[in-house]
């Protein structure tokens, strides 16, 4: 048996789910951020696999991935800035302690 498209997809799906679970279950904002990055990279895997298997000649998927990486990097930058900000004002990054606004 050979390693086919579905293996990559299963891998990416698993990573994605792990990331999503972490994003919901972890409390520390930075770890949540990491989990989100994990989700995004799972998508990258899927992209690469699709691109390789469904349109072998083109590089659409890979190009897409490059853009995703860039945007993700910018996202991390903004995210870290915001987290720093909230740490300055609250002395914590535990998301369950950050509920000033509700109801």
């Amino acid at each position: 048996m050979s390693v086919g498209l579905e293996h990559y997809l299963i891998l990416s799906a698993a990573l994605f789910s792990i990331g999503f679970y972490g994003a919901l279950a972890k409390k520390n904002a930075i770890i949540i951020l990491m989990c989100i990055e994990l989700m995004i990279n799972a998508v990258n895997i899927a992209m690469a696999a699709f691109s390789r298997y469904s349109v072998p000649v083109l590089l659409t998927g890979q190009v897409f991935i490059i853009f995703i990486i860039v945007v993700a990097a910018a996202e991390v930058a903004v995210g870290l800035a915001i987290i720093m900000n909230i740490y300055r004002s609250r002395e914590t990054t535990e998301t369950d302690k950050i509920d000033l606004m509700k109801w």
Partner: protein
Amino acid sequence: MATDYIYIALFLLAAILFVVTTLLIPVTLRFLKIIPHNPTPVKGSPFECGVETIGKTWVQFNLRYYLYALVFLIIDVLVVFLYPWAVNIRHLGLTGLIEMLILLTIVTVGYIYAWKKGALEWK
């Protein structure tokens, strides 16, 4: 095909065996009374790990590091675009060069901005 997996399986087996044996050896030696058993605090202390830690083991990194991380991150991402451009710069020709220059100017503006705002000072 299946044969490849057999190799992998063998490697796996070997690795597990190695770990298990290395764990078992001292236990057996102790069991056979080959090595003595008289623990002292010195022995109990971490072995060959430099000086003992003082204060909390969990150190928080200074916020400033994050600041550098941000600046670095932004400028670093540039490479993602530079590389594919460099690979077929000939094929892209003048327009490619111009576009890349635009990109560089934008990043430079960001750099100047960070500089002027004193993001690079260690205050």
